[in-house]
Structures are given as C-alpha cells and as structure tokens.
C-alpha cells in the first residue's frame, strides 16, 4: 500500500511503485455505429473508492458493466489483479456488483439473499451461516433476516443489496447509482455509512453516479466522463479547484464563466473580457496561448460583495443586483454587469439576526483575489 505524501495520505496513484488492481488499457465499446466508450485508459488501485461521474449516456455504466463482465470490450484490455478479464464470464470473476434497482431476489428472505453467492461457492452450512450473520451485523439488519425484500423499507433494501454484494469478500465492488432511490436525508447518511464500510472491509469500490455531490463526498478519486471519454481523473479537491476544462468546471458545482481572450501569460494569466475594462487575473489552465479565446472560471463562494469599491484587489467589477436567493445557510446574489454577464456570488449567513446589507437594484462591487479564478482554454 502506498503512503505517499508528507501527511501520510492515501494516494497510490502518485506512487510509481504501487500496483494497480484494475488496468483499463485503450478500451473501447461500440454498439453498432454508436461508440459508448472511446479508447479509455485508467488504473484503479487497491482500496480506492473510485467514482465514475458524468451525465446519463456518457458511458459510465457501460464501463462498469465491462468490469462486471456483462459487456465485452470491442477493443483494448481490462485486467483485474494482473489477470486478463476480457473472456472471463461474470460468474467467474472476483467482482461483485450492487445494482441500481438492488435486484434483490423477491422470493428469497434477506438471509437467503445474502447467502446466495456463498452457497454458489459451495461453502459448508456453518461457514455460510457465520458469514451471513457477520454481514447482517455490518449493515445492522439482524432482526430483519427472515423478512422478504418487499417487507422492508427502501433504505433497508439498499443495505441488504450492499451486504449481499460484499458477502463473498470481492476484490472489487461495483456500485451502480447505489443511493439513487433514497431520499436526500437518507442518502447523505448512507454516503457516510458506505465510506465507513469501505474502510472497514478494505474493499476497492468503484461507484457510478450522475450526482456530483455524492461523488465528491465518498470518492478518493473522481473520473469525470463525457461522450465515452475521460475528461479528468483526480481527487475531489483538485477536480473542484483545478478543473482542466470548462466542461469539468461547469459539471462540478456552480461556476461563473466569462468568455474573453488571453491578453497576458506568465505565472498568471490575464483575460481581456470587455473593451475598456482591466483584464481579469487568474491562474492559467493547461495548453493556453496568448491571444487565444479562453474562459474565465470563478466559483461563486470565492467572490466578495461590497458597496464600496475595494482597493486591495485587482479583480473587481461593478453591477446591479438582479436577484437574491436565500438558502438558509447562505444567500446567493445574481449581479448583472453592464457589459452583459450575470455573475453569481455566494455569501455565508453566519449570524442569525444579520441585517440585510443589499437589496434588489443596488449597485454593488464584486471582487476576488488573483488566484481565485482560472483561465481555461476553449
């Protein structure tokens, strides 16, 4: 196990000596004329909690189904633990999957559902029983063992599905939108439960989701996919703070995008965005050239709002408040600039009895530091 970095963080992908559990090498999948996966290469390391994130139809589910063995790649190699997997059928893989619909067997009790895979391995009765009890304890469903799937609630079904897929102690667990059917509150609780279980069992998890918040919360690394391609594979923090493209910046969280062209390029980048206005300063993204069309990306929470013109910051624009959204923990202001763009800015509501400083139609100044924004190639 790699323990690279000074704070002993888990980051095997940065360690050249680490051996990946899954190697996906130049894998493609075509259905007729449609290319679902386009020459993807990716390594996933043992004990990772890896998220495949993207809009529906981006190929994330197809990639997962290839790992499970339900689809065969049209080209390329997938190996798990050093073994070439392309011709291995799903029932011969040390990989288990938790299905989006949970796919619990309706005619079997919770206990028998969990025991199903163990019995297929020909384990003797006592060992099956011991393992099932262990799994029931892990997901805290001991008292529901004799119930049928339709006799328990949605959240409990989700846990049974998890216990069933973990019972055989797979090297790799695949989770297909595992929390999609739960309501928001339960989903958040279950996210932390999943992380806890992943840590306890030490299993490698690959999760497919279209919910960026879910991916950010649970995953050690996130792969953002679009139209069968990997756009960026990084830790949640890097994905959020240093997106490599406008697509990623826009897909993950909220972002203000201001089009313009690169006017200066050095340690930082300057983007000319409106005539007669000073350029916006930010950090340069990859493959940027001077004079090129680019987009300035700035997250709403990194923007400060004030009535007076701030003197200590280079990036400052003036505009009129168009809309105010009160979300409880924070307020969002939509500020329309005379040059056209509407900028979104978020301010935390720290005090309970705070006086509203701004109201609709107010002229305000927005400002942010030189390192808060990114200049991304278009």
């Amino acid at each position: 196990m790699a323990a690279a970095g000074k704070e002993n963080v888990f980051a095997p992908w940065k360690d050249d000596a680490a051996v990946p559990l899954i190697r996906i090498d130049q894998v493609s999948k075509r259905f007729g004329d449609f290319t679902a996966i386009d020459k993807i290469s990716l390594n996933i390391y043992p004990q990772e909690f890896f998220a495949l994130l993207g809009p529906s139809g981006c190929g994330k589910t197809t990639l997962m189904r290839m790992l499970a063995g339900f689809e065969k790649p049209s080209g390329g190699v997938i190996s798990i633990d050093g073994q070439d997997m392309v011709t291995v059928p799903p029932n011969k893989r040390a990989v288990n999957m938790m299905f989006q619909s949970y796919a619990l067997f309706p005619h079997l009790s919770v206990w028998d559902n969990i025991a199903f895979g163990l019995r297929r391995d020909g384990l003797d009765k006592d060992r099956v029983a011991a393992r099932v009890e262990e799994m029931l304890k892990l997901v805290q469903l001991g008292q529901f063992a004799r119930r049928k799937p339709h006799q328990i609630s949605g959240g409990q079904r989700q846990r049974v599905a998890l216990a069933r897929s973990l019972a055989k102690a797979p090297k790799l667990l695949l989770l297909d939108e595992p929390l999609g059917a739960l309501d928001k509150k339960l989903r958040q609780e279950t996210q932390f439960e999943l992380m806890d279980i992943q840590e306890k069992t030490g299993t490698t998890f690959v999760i497919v989701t279209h919910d960026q918040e879910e991916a950010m919360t649970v995953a050690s690394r996130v792969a953002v996919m679009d139209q069968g391609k990997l756009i960026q594979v990084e830790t949640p923090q890097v994905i959020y703070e240093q997106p490599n493209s406008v697509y990623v910046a826009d897909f993950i969280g909220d972002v203000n995008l201001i089009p313009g062209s690169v006017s200066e390029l050095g340690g930082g980048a300057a983007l000319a965005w409106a005539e007669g206005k000073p350029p916006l300063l930010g950090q340069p993204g990859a493959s940027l050239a001077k004079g090129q069309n680019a987009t300035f990306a700035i997250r709403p929470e990194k923007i400060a709002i004030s009535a007076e013109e701030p003197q200590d910051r280079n990036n400052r624009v003036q505009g009129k408040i168009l809309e105010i959204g009160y979300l409880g923990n924070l307020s969002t202001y939509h500020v329309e600039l005379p040059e056209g763009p509407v900028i979104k800015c978020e301010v935390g509501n720290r005090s309970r009895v705070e006086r509203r400083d701004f109201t609709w139609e107010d002229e305000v100044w927005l400002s942010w530091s030189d390192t808060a924004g990114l200049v991304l190639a278009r």
Partner: protein
Amino acid sequence: MTRLTTFNIVSLTLGFAFLYIPMLILVIYSFNASQLVTVWGGFSTKWYGELLRNEAMIDAAWVTMKVAFFSSTLATVLGTMAAYVLVRRGRFYGRTLFSGMIYAPLVMPEVITGLSLLLLFIAIGLDRGVLTIVLAHTTFSMCYVSVVVSSRLVSFDDSLEEAALDLGASPFEAFRLVTLPIIAPAVISGWLLAFTLSLDDLVIASFTAGPSATTLPIKIFSSVRLGVSPEINALSTIIIAIVTVGVLTASIVSKRQITRRLREEAQAG
C-alpha cells in the same frame, strides 16, 4: 361501492341467465329419474350409479386425464423454453419469424392442425393411441403456454438474473434458482390452461385418436349422436362441479396471497 340501479340489476340478471341457464338445466336433468331426457320423472341419483358402472366411460375419462397431464406438462416445458429464448435472449437473426411462427397455431383452424398431424403420424408409421394424442395436444397447447409465460417475462427485471450471475451462479443455475421461481405463477397458469385445453379438445383428438384410446369428449360426442342419455348429464354435472371447485380454490388462494402481500408491504412502510 356503487349502488345497484334497476338498469344494472336487469343487465346483470340477463347476462348471468344467458351464461348459466343451459348448465343449470343440465344439472337439474342429471337428477331425473326418467329415461327420457326431456321429461321430468322425479328426483333420482341412479344415473350417477349407472355412470360408475359404465367401464367404457371410466376408461375414456382415465385416458383423458393421462393425455391432459402429459401433454400439458410437455407443453409447459417447451412453451417456457420458447418464451424464454424469444423474450430474454435479445434480438437474434430470424427472431421475428420465430415468434410469428410460434403463435400461428393459435389462429390455425383446429381441423387443419388435426388433419396435418394425422397425415404426419401416418407418414412416419406411428400407431394412433394415447401417445399420438399427447403429441398432438402438446403441439397446439405449447403456444398458449408460450404466450402466458412470455407476457410475464417481458416485465421481468433483467438485473435479477445478472445479479445471480454476478454472485457466481452459472446461467442454468440463474434460471433455476432465480428466474423460474419468480415466473412460477405464470408457468403454473400456463400448465393449467394447457390442461384445460387438452381436457375439452374434441376436433384434434378425433383426428389423432385410435381405436385403442378414446378421450371423454369423443366418447360423449359419439354417444350423444345416438341420443342423449341422462348418464351424460350426470357426467357433465360432475365435470362442472370439479371445474367450479378448482376455479373457486384458485381465486381464493390468489386473493389471500394478494391481501397478505399488501398488508406486509404496508407494515414495511
């Protein structure tokens, strides 16, 4: 509960009268003491006694049961297999042709099915008897089974079978341990349908039956041609009683299952 209006009562009465008066008359006349079918001669159960002593009739009933049991079982196996392949195994070359062909016997006139089977049995030199009736009944009832089973398979969640494979079951185990138990109700009703179809088939059976084996419908039909005997009324009454008991049991059992399931789901919340 909607209130019954006069119009509803009248239409209900007429409908039920239309359906059940013929049967009711048959049942009443089975207890007729008179030899003449159309003249009431007082209450008697003697025709039931006569029936039990009529060996030809008992033999025919026995043959019918055997034929129905074996043909419906065989039709269920073949029909389920056909439905499974057509619904679950994706789009293979010639699938549309196959699914069209499997349903063709549904609309084919029975006389033609019977005749073609007769010609086939003669051509291959198979002596007509119980075996030929079983084969003939299997042929025409398997498409009914296939229709019933495939309508269930269409709504079957594919991921259940994938989950079984994923947990280490071979494709056959996945079918036996997961798919089959779930579609069992459809398979059973397919079997019952095939059984009933075989029980009351006259046309195909008369083409394929030989002197050694006569089914009940053939026997009844031929004896009625010589004049309706009250014995036939008694036999028909017994058959009606059996069918009524069967239908009532089936509907009570399924109703209980549904209410239990609904109650359990309500408890699960």
